[in-house]
């Protein structure tokens, strides 16, 4: 950063003085040799009245910017054109402005008012583009203006403008981090947005501004999961990565029992107290289920994001599904292969079985770039086990003949690793490697020596002939690492080659001064070891070597020589340590473990830059460990009514401009659709249609398309048919939420009531004095000319078991005024009427309230398993509604009816929908399942303890459909 600004300052400085630029910038010399003059004529062109001249000038300026040349001295001339009528000129001016505003802050301010005007434009695209440019201008003075603009745009009726607002948030944050708190508020608001267009962008903003505020996600979690499939590709990646982190903090490790068992096996301890069996949170399941289809995305980044999500979050048995998709990515560009293979290498260490079926996909072609070859080799090595090792080794044999020497070296190391990991093939590998020692390529030989050294350490006794063979190599081989390895081997196992070792030392002593440092150190080591085991033959040689080392240029070698001399050559001064010299030097050394460089890399989130580099990149968010105990899952529950109010208004406004007559008719349906989506737990198909309706005005929703598909001709008629059906449904069954049109029933007509009219409705709020009662909201209107007094109820006549909580007396209702009161009735889960007298100070009226069956229930949430369990225990009532119109809409309409009264539950199939509710009084479960059958018919099944309720519910649904 600092370097870059210095670079600009330097350039900016030179031009502000007015010097010709070409003197400073050699790059510009070639093409624009007379830049100085040209700038003058560009200024002239910009000042002219002709748009074409302005355009020409701007194009040339943008071309200069693109080539990286400085055009900052044109700023005043360009900024004048910011309000130009011509769209293209305007766009190019924006490009220029964004590029140079930072350097010319004062002049840039001249343009701000234009954008502020743009923010108020009736066209959403102009509003969006104004916000985009405004927020891209990096001038600190306008931070308050930007803040205001973002806040306003965040509640704009156009989702596109809201998306732009989400994009602007990180821009403002990077300009002024002090605005964080205010920006978080905006993010919170936008996170609640229901449109797919906004979702990806706002999560991106969340990740950049406040990734630690995981609590903001709770309420939006289910919605994000459900919208995911319709979000654009780039947004999907960001959302999936964020949700991975979220899930790690909120759910339990699905593999915890497995891992515990493993640990037990290892420790073989007494059985610990058994933990309760693991049950996956339905929200955890929802995430896994909704991301899985994205493995089929064409975008490699999306596939990778899902793969890492499964790797980090899914139960062991389910992780396997990602292998196929990852292997598919290996067909893509080599850069994609590179990243994917890195991740596969990490995964294959932990879950080897997953990639075993795809072993052959990792075979190497001579045309692969070296880095790809090496990574494939890594994966092959990780996948090697007793059963496939022979095939893999045969492959390796072909690789050794490759022309690419780096790759051959890597192959030899891979062979070494296979040999250490799989004992059965150790001898075969060793023999193969020894053969390589006679290879003509020195690099190959050297690499083999190094690997053989490691292998020999495992069982040196058996292989003294190999050591002898290698001792001979010292005459020819020049690669320092290999020479050092041979010397170490001979020293370490000098007892196995008692005759050769002193001879090698003799030769080495001769060439000591010409060796590399690493070899010199090993010569000293060899000398010391031989001195300890065979001092008779080597005493003088050792002295000689140590003397040479004493005057070496490298202090490390001098140090080593001094240290070893003290240790092994006994003198009066030498301390107690020299007694132990033999033990120190000839101790049994543990064989090296050859490990993959990718081991334990999975503590970085896979697919991330940090994982690729194996180092924490700036801004990387750690993947948290699973919690011990799951945090409260209810934080993700969403209250329906709030969100309806929030979004309902926005999207409705949005539509008004384009509404056609047909849409007018469907308005009601839409509204209810929105409510549906608000419950956050419907199937994808529905969210498809929801999002399309709220976002797109020019395109048909998917559901509509489907309807059209079946019968495009009488499409319109059907819409009407469905709409009328829906209206009637709403009439007979009532809708849930208070802000959707709650149907009012008439209790007392104003003629019968002599001016007093009373209406009531079921408010669907819990009745606070008594939870078992249904709340009934009554509205009294005095249409008479005189006031009514002492409104109260009397003489309640009820069926057995029913109870009523009377509304508080209304003492005075002046003429023309309205008053409301709430009463509670316990209908005892029946549709029997409650009869009572409504009294005023003068009259008494007999009235009765009868509830529709739907009002006797409250939504309740069940998991899939609970649902199935309960379903088996309850009496079921089934019906197949007749099919006067299309199946899809029928299916949806049934779902809709049920939706009003019960909670829609997540469910695996789109052919089935589940709803659950509880009756208000006794709390008995009412479960409903709607399934589509072959041939377009739908089937409705209601399970309930109380047969009557079940039958009535089915009857009501049927009635509503046939009306």
């Amino acid at each position, binding site marked *: *950063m600092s370097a*870059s600004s210095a*670079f600009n300052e330097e350039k900016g400085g030179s031009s502000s003085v007015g010097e010709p630029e070409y003197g400073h910038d050699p790059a510009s010399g070639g093409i624009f040799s007379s830049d100085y003059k040209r700038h003058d004529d560009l200024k002239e062109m910009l000042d002219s009245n002709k748009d074409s001249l302005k*355009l020409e000038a701007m194009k040339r300026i*943008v*071309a200069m*910017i693109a*080539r*990286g040349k400085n055009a900052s001295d044109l700023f005043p001339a360009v900024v004048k054109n910011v309000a130009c009528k011509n769209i*293209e000129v305007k766009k190019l001016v924006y490009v220029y402005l964004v590029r140079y505003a*930072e350097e010319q802050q004062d002049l840039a301010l001249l343009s701000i008012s234009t954008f502020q005007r743009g923010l108020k434009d009736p066209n959403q695209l*102009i509003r969006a583009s104004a916000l985009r440019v405004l*927020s*891209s201008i990096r001038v600190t003075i306008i931070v308050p203006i930007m803040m205001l603009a973002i806040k306003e745009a965040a509640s704009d009726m156009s989702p596109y403008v809201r998306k732009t607002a989400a*994009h602007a948030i990180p821009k403002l944050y*990077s300009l002024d981090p002090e605005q964080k708190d205010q920006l978080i508020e905006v993010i919170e608001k936008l996170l609640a947005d229901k449109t797919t*267009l906004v979702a990806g962008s706002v999560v*991106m903003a969340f990740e950049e501004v406040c990734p630690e505020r995981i609590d903001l996600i709770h309420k939006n979690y289910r919605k994000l999961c459900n919208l995911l499939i319709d979000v654009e590709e*780039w947004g999907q990646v960001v959302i999936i990565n964020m949700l991975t982190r979220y899930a790690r903090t909120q759910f339990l490790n699905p593999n915890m029992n497995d891992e515990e068992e493993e640990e037990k096996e290892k420790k073989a301890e007494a059985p610990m107290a058994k933990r309760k069996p693991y049950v996956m949170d339905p929200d955890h399941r929802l995430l896994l289920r909704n991301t899985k*289809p994205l493995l089929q*995305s*064409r975008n490699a*980044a999306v596939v990778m994001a899902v793969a890492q999500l499964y790797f980090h979050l899914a139960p062991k048995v389910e992780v396997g599904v990602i292998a196929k998709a990852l292997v598919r990515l290996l*067909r893509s*560009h080599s*850069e*994609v292969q*590179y*990243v994917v293979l890195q991740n596969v290498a990490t995964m294959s260490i932990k879950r080897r079985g997953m990639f075993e079926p795809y072993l052959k*996909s990792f*075979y190497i072609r*001579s*045309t692969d*770039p070296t*880095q790809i070859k090496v990574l494939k080799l890594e994966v092959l090595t990780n996948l090697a086990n007793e059963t496939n090792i022979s095939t893999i080794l045969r492959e390796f044999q072909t690789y050794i*003949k490759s*022309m690419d020497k780096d790759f051959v070296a890597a192959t030899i190391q891979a062979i070494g690793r296979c040999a250490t990991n799989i004992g059965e093939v150790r001898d075969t590998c060793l023999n193969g490697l020894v053969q390589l020692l006679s290879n*003509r*390529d020195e690099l190959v030989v050297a690499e083999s020596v190094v690997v053989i050294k490691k292998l020999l350490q495992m069982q040196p006794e058996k292989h003294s002939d190999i050591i002898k063979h290698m001792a001979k190599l010292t005459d020819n081989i020049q690669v320092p690492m290999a020479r050092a390895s041979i010397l170490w081997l001979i020293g370490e196992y000098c007892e196995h080659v008692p005759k050769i070792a002193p001879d090698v030392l003799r030769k080495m002593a001769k060439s000591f001064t010409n060796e590399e440092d690493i070899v010199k150190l090993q010569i000293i080591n060899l000398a010391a070891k031989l001195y300890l085991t065979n001092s008779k033959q080597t005493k003088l040689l050792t002295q000689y070597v140590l003397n040479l080392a004493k005057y070496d240029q490298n202090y490390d070698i001098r140090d080593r020589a001094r240290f070893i001399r003290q240790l092994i050559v006994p003198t009066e001064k030498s301390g107690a340590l020299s007694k132990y010299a033999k033990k120190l030097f000839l101790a049994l050394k543990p064989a090296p473990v050859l490990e993959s460089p990718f081991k334990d890399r999975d503590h970085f989130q896979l697919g*991330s*830059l940090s994982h*690729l*580099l194996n180092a924490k*990149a*700036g*801004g*990387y968010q750690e993947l948290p460990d699973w919690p011990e105990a799951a945090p409260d899952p209810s934080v993700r529950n969403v209250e329906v009514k709030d969100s309806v109010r929030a979004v309902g208004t926005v999207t409705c406004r949005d539509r008004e401009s384009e509404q056609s007559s047909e849409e007018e008719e469907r308005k009601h349906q839409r509204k209810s659709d929105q409510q549906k989506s608000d419950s956050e737990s419907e199937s*994808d*198909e529905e969210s498809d249609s929801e999002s*399309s309706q709220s*976002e*797109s*005005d*020019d*395109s*048909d929703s998917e559901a509509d*398309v489907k309807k*059209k*598909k079946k019968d*495009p001709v009488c499409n319109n008629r059907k819409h009407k048919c469905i709409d009328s059906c829906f209206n009637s449904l709403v009439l007979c069954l009532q809708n849930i939420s208070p802000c959707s049109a709650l149907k009012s029933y008439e209790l007392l007509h104003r003629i019968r009531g002599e001016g007093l009219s009373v209406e009531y409705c079921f408010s669907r709020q819990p009745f606070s004095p008594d939870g078992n009662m249904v709340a009934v909201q009554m509205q009294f209107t005095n249409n008479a000319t005189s006031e009514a007094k002492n409104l109260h109820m009397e003489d309640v006549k009820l069926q057995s078991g029913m109870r009523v909580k009377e509304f508080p007396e209304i003492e005075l209702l002046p003429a023309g005024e309205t008053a409301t009161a709430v009463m509670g009735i316990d209908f005892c889960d029946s549709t029997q009427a409650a009869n009572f007298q409504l009294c005023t100070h003068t009259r008494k009226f007999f009235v009765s309230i009868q509830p529709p069956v739907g009002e006797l229930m409250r939504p309740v949430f069940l998991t899939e398993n609970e649902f199935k369990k309960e379903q088996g225990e309850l009496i079921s009532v089934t019906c197949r509604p007749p099919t006067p119109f299309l199946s899809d809409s029928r299916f949806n309409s049934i779902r809709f009816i049920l939706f009003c009264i019960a909670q829609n539950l997540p469910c695996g199939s789109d052919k089935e929908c589940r709803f659950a509710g509880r009756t208000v009084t006794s709390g008995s479960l009412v479960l409903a399942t709607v399934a589509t059958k072959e041939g377009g018919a739908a089937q409705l099944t209601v399970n309930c303890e109380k047969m009557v309720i079940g039958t009535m519910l089915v009857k009501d649904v049927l009635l509503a459909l046939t009306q």
Partner: protein
Amino acid sequence: MIHSLFLINHSGDIFLEKHWKSVISRSVCDYFFEAKEKAAEPENVAPVLQTPHHYLITIYRGKLFFLSVVQTEAPPLFVIEFLHRVADIFQDYFGECSESVIKDNVVTVYELLEEMLDNGFPLATESNVLKEMIRPPTILRSVVNTLTGTWSNVGDTLPTGQLSNIPWRRAGVKYTNNEAYFDVIEEIDAIVDKSGTTVCAEIQGVIEACVRLTGMPDLTLSFMNPRLLDDVSFHPCVRFKRWESERALSFIPPDGNFTLMNYHVSSQNLVALPVYVKQSISFFDSGPCGRLDITVGPKQTMGKTVEALMVTIHMPKAVLSANLTATQGSYTYDLATKVLVWDIGKLNPQKLPNLKGSLSLQAGAPKPEDNPSLNIDLKIQQMAISGLKVSRLEMFGEKYKPFKGVKYLTKAGKFQVRT
């Protein structure tokens, strides 16, 4: 996420730069040049490089490097995929993605980059949406522009596609001839070892579509034998649910050319290779020479002719020249890159093509230990080697009758014969 983009040509000149946040000096590319120096081939430059303050993520396409600068954690595939999308868009707009074309259209390129990213996060990457905002150059327009002197490549209408939930299709498409063509292209990836046995072989397929239909058509493409398809990936327009339940592709297509789906044929179906290769390449210790003898013959072609047959061999460095005779086609040996190409053309089953002769080695050089491998290229028209067949294409939502066509083609993908 993505901070800046530099376009660098083969010889290492930066010819275009674009910054989406504050400006980063082009000296940051020096780290890349350093890595490029070290790597022998441009393909061998690591796609992700770490520098003290930035991360450089690079792709290599069409002899150009697309180098992006990232400052903080960002999924590398995200950036790589985006850069390839940029290259695809250039290809789509200008017909090719090369330095000269980008230089000629520098303003359009700059405008495109401006629209594709906002603050480093992708904004509009669908070619249909972009084309509404920025018109691609056409010959007619460039003629008109030079005549009238006004050259504008910004669309007059505002892009509505960005607002819809099917961003891949623009609204108000109109054609006089409504047509939909689908090309089923399959590629055989295989490794054959020295003795002629198949080490591994698989089939990868792709369905390329060219759809020019008026309005908002809703298409359903179904197969005779969808079971063949083992693994698939789709254009975002394809409805995944329909595929899951009916194994049919249901979609509202983008306008113009696009890749509808990629697939992998399940490995249970044994892949029958269409040709076999008999080869012997040997080098002798005595005298600086080697011998080469290659014959190609048909194996399983199901009665179709193998066309555009070509054999490419990367020779060891020591091979100086080749003195060969081909019974069919012609061969070339590039001395600089050491690549021998034998262009055979149509394969005649009656008279098998053969290439035979001697190779001369550098004097004094030891006999190469490594044998080169052969890369085979071929084409078979009117056949999908897996046997995949499209059964029908239906259209809903529009009333006209479109012209439909399906073409099959089999190609060699990474078909390698080891020696």
